[in-house]
């Protein structure tokens, strides 16, 4: 049962061949066994999950219609608001925060009869690339427990890789779904900005944040998209379906894209480790063998992406995180003498180093006298990057490149060097700036048997095609069936 994909499990549960209680119980068995090592979860909900599973089983037995994820144990990143448990963002400032409402994606998962087993660890407020910035817990990579799972959705990726759930949701502001998926050897999809509602996702960089699935297979990513995609009246930035209709992402998934033209950006790829480049080239060869054409495309402004990203994301973050002040909820300092100190001391005590660093960066970038030089310029760069993609996609259906320059690095290796850490986002950031969808799928291993991800980027709202392209590779290989050592 551990081998099953979410979709296969759902089919068996719906057919009455496996009960959700069995599947959920087995997941908690594995959690008991592996979670002390992996540390993927900030909270788990064994009793409510099993009760829910029993309810789904009862409805199936009674012949009732059940949802697309009926009985499937899933996990959500702890920056998605839920009325059950806490919603901490892995921050001490929200350690005991209980949301009075469910995020739209949580509602959708529940409406699809998913069984939510727990909420996963992450870099505090999704700021980081290794999950080491969690203020509450350490998560390790299931393939090598001395290494990071990537981040910021490291808990979700580790949970899926460690088979501690069948699928999970992550959020991606600059690569936070794709990079941990790559590090953990699983599939991670960042949808187009506006495809999935952000209502209830605790904001980091509002114009960049997007929720997406982390799964074992491309098919499961498509299944999850069927559940979570679509317009939400509560999120003004979610796209009207009249403009960009949501489709059944499973319907044509197995149809290969004919006359596929793959764009590559040679000058970008050379920055990655040799093993990563080798795996990328091998993956492209698989597509070539399937009849794809390779075209070189130019991304002239990609050098400026990291700079623009760290200005826009931190500027928005400095404003988004202003509300955590100890006045209305969350940690409040008991040392404050007046209301200004309630702010300064509560925040100083409970925010982690990286969060403080980014709040300060963003505050500076928005300050009077610097706005034009930093924020405004970053917005201009963003437009140029968007244009680079538009022009590139005139020549190709998708662009392939590495997800990260390296495979999973050692715990502690980069924590004291934030700039190097920022640079590891070099391949993923552009998609967030341009708002386009990107996926990471397992495409090989390095000399240490660490997974390597292939990143595929597609035009806005082309998730359908993107998933089909990814599926073409998955159909040709068995990389997604490889299991981490701990499993």
């Amino acid at each position, binding site marked *: 049962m551990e081998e099953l994909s979410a979709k296969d499990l759902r089919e068996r549960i719906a057919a009455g061949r496996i009960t959700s209680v069995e599947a959920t119980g087995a997941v908690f068995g594995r959690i008991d066994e592996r979670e002390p090592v992996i540390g993927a979860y900030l909270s788990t909900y064994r009793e409510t999950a099993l009760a829910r599973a029993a309810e789904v089983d009862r409805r199936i037995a009674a012949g009732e219609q059940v949802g697309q994820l009926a009985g499937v144990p899933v996990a959500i990143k702890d*920056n*998605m*608001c839920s009325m059950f448990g806490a*919603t901490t*963002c892995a921050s001490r400032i*929200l350690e005991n*925060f209980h*949301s*009075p*409402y469910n*995020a739209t994606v949580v509602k959708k998962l529940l409406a699809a009869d998913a069984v939510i087993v727990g909420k996963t660890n992450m870099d505090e407020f999704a700021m980081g690339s290794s999950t080491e910035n969690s203020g509450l817990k350490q998560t390790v990579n299931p393939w090598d427990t001395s290494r990071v799972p990537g981040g910021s959705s490291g808990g979700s990726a580790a949970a899926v890789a460690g088979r501690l759930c069948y699928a999970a949701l992550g959020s991606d502001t600059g690569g936070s779904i794709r990079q941990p998926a790559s590090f953990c050897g699983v599939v991670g999809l960042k949808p187009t900005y506006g495809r999935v509602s*952000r*209502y*209830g*996702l*605790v*904001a980091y*960089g*509002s*114009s960049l944040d997007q929720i997406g699935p982390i799964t074992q297979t491309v098919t499961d990513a498509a299944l999850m998209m069927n559940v979570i995609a679509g317009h939400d*009246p*509560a*999120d*003004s*930035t979610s796209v009207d379906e009249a403009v960009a209709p949501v489709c059944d992402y499973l319907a044509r998934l197995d149809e290969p894209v004919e006359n596929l033209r793959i764009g590559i950006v040679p000058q970008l790829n050379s920055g990655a480790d040799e093993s990563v480049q080798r795996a990328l080239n091998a993956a492209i060869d698989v597509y070539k063998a399937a009849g794809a054409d390779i075209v070189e495309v130019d991304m002239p402004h990609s050098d400026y992406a990291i700079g623009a990203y760290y200005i826009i994301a931190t*500027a*928005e973050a*400095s*404003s988004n995180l*202003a*509300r*955590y*002040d100890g*006045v*209305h*909820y969350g940690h409040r300092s008991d040392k404050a003498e007046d*209301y*200004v100190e309630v*702010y300064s001391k509560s925040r100083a005590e409970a925010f982690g180093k990286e969060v403080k660093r980014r709040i300060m960066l963003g*505050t500076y970038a*928005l*300050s*009077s006298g610097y*706005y034009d030089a930093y*924020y405004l310029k970053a917005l201009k760069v963003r437009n140029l990057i968007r244009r680079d993609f538009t022009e590139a996609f005139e020549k190709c259906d998708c662009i392939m490149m590495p997800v990260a320059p390296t495979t999973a690095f050692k715990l502690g290796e980069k924590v004291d060097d934030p700039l190097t850490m920022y640079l590891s986002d070099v391949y993923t950031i552009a998609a967030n700036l341009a708002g386009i969808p990107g996926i990471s799928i397992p495409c090989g291993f390095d000399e240490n048997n660490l997974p390597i991800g292939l990143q595929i980027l597609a035009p806005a709202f082309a998730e359908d095609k993107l998933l089909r392209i990814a599926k073409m590779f998955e159909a040709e290989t068995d990389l997604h069936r490889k299991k981490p050592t701990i499993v």
Partner: protein
Amino acid sequence: MSDFQHKVIVGLEIHVQLCTRSKMFCGCAVAFGEQANSRVCPVCLGMPGVLPVMNKQAFEYAVLVGLALNCEIPSFTKWDRKSYYYPDLPKNYQISQYDLPLAKDGFIQIPPAGGKKAKGKDEADSAQSKRIGIIRAHLEEDAGKNLHTAGNFSSVDLNRTGTPLLEIVSEPDLSGGAEARALAVELQRIVRYLGVSEGDMQKGQMRFEPNINLVITKDGKEFKTPIVEVKNLNSFRALERSIDYEVQRQLDEFLETGLVLEMGNKTTRGWDDEREVTVLQREKEEAHDYRYFPEPDLVPVELTDAWLDEIRGRLCELPLARQVRYVEEYKLSDYDAGVLTGERGTADFFESAVATGGEPKRVCNLLTQVGLKLANEKGCGVDELGVTAQSVADLAGMVALGDVSAGAAAAIFEAMAETGKEPRLLADELSLIQKSDAGELEAMVDEVLAANPQAVKDVTSGGKKSKKARGFLLGQVMQKTKGQANPKVVSEIIARKFG
């Protein structure tokens, strides 16, 4: 003291709460006086993960005011975040509009300052209205309220948080407290006319922040005094008085210290309503940097021509234009026209009464002298008294025909409000119909003349006594008819008797 002149320069920022049903960015009801923190939801509480959704009606209301203020309405407008930390602002930023307000470059016509207070009701409207420039109008969300109660703690009530707030900024075209007041009154009339705000000052639905300084010409040189912004005024009176106070204070200060306007020496003062003085507010240690940037959670608003036309269709004739028209079309005094156009409901009611045949001046008199007083007592509009425009027109007609006296008309109006009955019916029931039948009245005059020979003698003798005697005789006839005789007709008969 005599070798200098000064000119007062005042610009006004006005905040107007819009009376939409729900808040600016969430579905909570806009409410006043409810239990603290009972009209809140995760969105207006600024809980983690929430997103704002623009209230379309608030936007349309704001555009409507922009149109009424003759503003340019750009087809593209957006939202910005204004950052500052304060406990009544749960997100620690306010969603507002920074560089692309929804309305700009307009003007408002205000009646001549003091004009409405003029005692001489019938004096001609010689003074011209004045045009005050409007720099911009933009929408934002209101903050909550900090309640400084007892002890070491303050409480926060967030019911008001997220109420749609329209900020209107005028050019510094105002010459003092009286004009600022006139603008404020006119704006209140406009928003009430448009039905976009109740403009109730006691509920904080209109708040004013004037910026004041002086240009002093002394020894042939010009000096500008430092600008003072007076914060959070919530009555016309406080607005006017605080400006007048500031003018004098700045004058005194200049004469004493010679302090002039420089970069960064603008100050903020509050108004002490009891002592009637402005008070310097604690200066912030550092200058405010609101760190405005575009609100990423809201999409910009694109106002299509069709949408703008639809909103424009909801404009009505504005109060000042209506006032001017009443003077021209109905030959009313400016004072009366001003009173009638004070509320849209009153003006509409007046016009329907006129449309059903009421003579304008008489309808006006009935409404201003009786209707409005009654409405005021009952705390409702004149159109909500339960009296139809038709019956007011009929009553005016009865007065015109001399069927009832002006005094009787007032009694009938009150009875109409109470019973809803027709004026003629009530006049009969209350025996208020005047006797105007000359034959019947002549017999009575004869009786009175016969019974009062001394008075008759006084009349014929002429002189001072004559006038008084005529009055006495008229009074006798009125008494005899229990007040129902038409005094005009009786006077004419008496006059005829004495040829």
